[in-house]
């Protein structure tokens, strides 16, 4: 049965701040810029916003998390002079930006608000990135004393087993990572818009936790991206072509392994998530014209491709060769450069790129004629989610 809220809500505007690495400018100003741009893009004024949704959590341990300075939570915008009519908000603790989109759809469909601002703001702290505790409590007591702490070893352990079981070679990942950089070179919102990468650059990169090298890890940035969501009915009267939310789902599958990521957990969580998107929308894998697949670490793209059914188990490294996922390929993936090359926006870059592609606003990296964009965000440890966007109101 299709989703009761299928295409009831549309994205009416998208806005970007500048993108920096480290900066002394408070993160709240980046968020203000992105929000203003998204609201203007939608042809609205800020006082039209009556709903707010974000996933504000900093991505690193030891973050101070000061509202408006190194994180941008709902409180930041409730302090804005234009926010007097906000009647609904949602602040997700887990699940990332697709959760915020889904929450906003529910609120708009239920009439809790009429115009929702959805954003994600990310910050690079000064000094060493992240800190580690000298004590390990809870599950971490069984992993951190052995050096297994944080997303890098979690992903490396999953990726090693994936390569061993599939017979793949890490050198083959160059096609995906260099391709992502090529896309970013055509995206003015990418932190690596002006920096190219060759296969030799990739193969020469230093190891972080093998088989993950430096360029398999995403690039931390300071930036904000915002979307304006409203009802499809209102969106038809606004200047931009509406991009409809045809499906939105949440990962809820229980993980079998809680001390690190595994390929099995990713597929076990990813497959029912994607199946839910097909059920909600009535569409299928063959309808997807462009895919934005979370790439905080490059191998996640492989797992998403397999979980979504674009290729068989263990086949994704072969699938991404020969330009198949390039802008002019059979399945364009991460056309804006993704987290690897546009910058680590925890999925909001992926969502925004999907909107631009469906509006035919993606400039030099525009895919020929996409009607549906699949956005899959997160990983089993982070309770990610998925959104399917369409150009037509199904």
């Amino acid at each position, binding site marked *: 049965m299709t989703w009761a809220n299928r295409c009831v809500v549309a994205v009416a505007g998208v806005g970007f701040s500048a993108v920096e690495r480290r900066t002394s400018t408070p993160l709240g100003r980046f968020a203000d810029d992105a929000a203003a741009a998204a609201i203007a893009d939608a042809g609205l004024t800020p006082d039209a916003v009556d709903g707010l949704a974000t996933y504000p959590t900093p991505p690193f341990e030891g973050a101070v998390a000061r509202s408006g300075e190194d994180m941008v939570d709902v409180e930041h915008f409730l302090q804005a002079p234009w926010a007097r009519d906000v009647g609904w908000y949602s602040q997700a603790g887990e699940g990332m930006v697709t959760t915020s989109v889904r929450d906003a759809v529910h609120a708009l469909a239920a009439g809790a608000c009429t115009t929702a601002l959805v954003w994600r703001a990310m910050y690079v702290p000064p000094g*060493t990135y992240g800190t*580690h*505790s*000298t*004590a*390990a*409590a*809870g*599950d*971490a*007591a*069984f*992993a*951190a*004393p*052995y*050096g*297994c*702490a*944080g997303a*890098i*070893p979690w992903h*490396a*352990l*999953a*990726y*090693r*087993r994936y390569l*061993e*079981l599939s017979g793949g070679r890490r050198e083959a990942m160059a096609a995906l990572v260099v391709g992502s950089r090529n896309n970013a070179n055509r995206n003015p919102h990418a932190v690596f818009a002006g920096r190219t990468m060759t296969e030799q650059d990739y193969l020469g990169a*230093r*190891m*972080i*936790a*093998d*088989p*993950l090298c430096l360029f398999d890890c995403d690039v931390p940035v300071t930036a904000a991206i915002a979307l304006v969501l409203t009802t499809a009915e209102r969106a038809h009267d606004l200047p931009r072509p509406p991009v409809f939310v045809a499906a939105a789902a949440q990962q809820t599958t*229980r993980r*079998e*392994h*809680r*001390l*690190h990521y595994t390929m099995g957990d990713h597929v076990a969580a990813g497959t029912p998530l994607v199946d839910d998107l097909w059920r909600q929308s009535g569409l299928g894998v063959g309808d997807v014209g462009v895919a934005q697949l979370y790439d905080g670490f490059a191998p996640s793209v492989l797992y998403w491709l397999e979980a979504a059914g674009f290729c068989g188990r263990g086949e994704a490294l072969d699938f991404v060769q020969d330009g198949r996922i390039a802008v002019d390929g059979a399945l364009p993936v991460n056309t804006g450069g993704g987290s690897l090359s546009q910058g680590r926006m925890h999925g909001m870059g992926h969502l925004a790129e999907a909107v631009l592609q469906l509006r035919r606003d993606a400039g030099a990296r525009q895919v020929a004629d996409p009607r549906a964009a699949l956005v899959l965000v997160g990983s089993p440890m982070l309770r990610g989610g998925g959104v399917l966007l369409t150009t037509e109101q199904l």
Partner: protein
Amino acid sequence: MSDRPATDAAWTRPVPVPDDVTAAFWAAAGEGRLVVQRCADCGTYQHPPRPRCTSCAGEPAYTGVSGDATLVSWTAAHDPVVPGRPRGLAPVTIVVVELVEQPGLWLVSDLVGVDDRELAVGLPMRVAFDATAGDQVLPRFVPAGDPS
């Protein structure tokens, strides 16, 4: 590999904090015994510990296990990925092993000074109690063919 250092003195490992659910695991490790939660109702092992059995919501109780395992995965983690490890040292090889008692019963451990080319999925491993974090003895896993 007999020249492999069993521990690495320069590494200040994060110290496990026992709690009501996990104290028995760490107390046993201090005595050189590996114990894992096993459900008194359905017999399923689980790790890391939980307040209840995640298969049937029954009562878990710590049970001695053989300490025999096979290698599931590994990564040579370079600084600064490894908490408490000074920069400039050799990478730590973080490993995941599967205890022979039950498929999917996985524990995390590490190897110091190992040649990763010797490692393969399915390699037999065995438990050792040759490292500490603070005053806490850690159960670790080494290739079963290595001299102790």
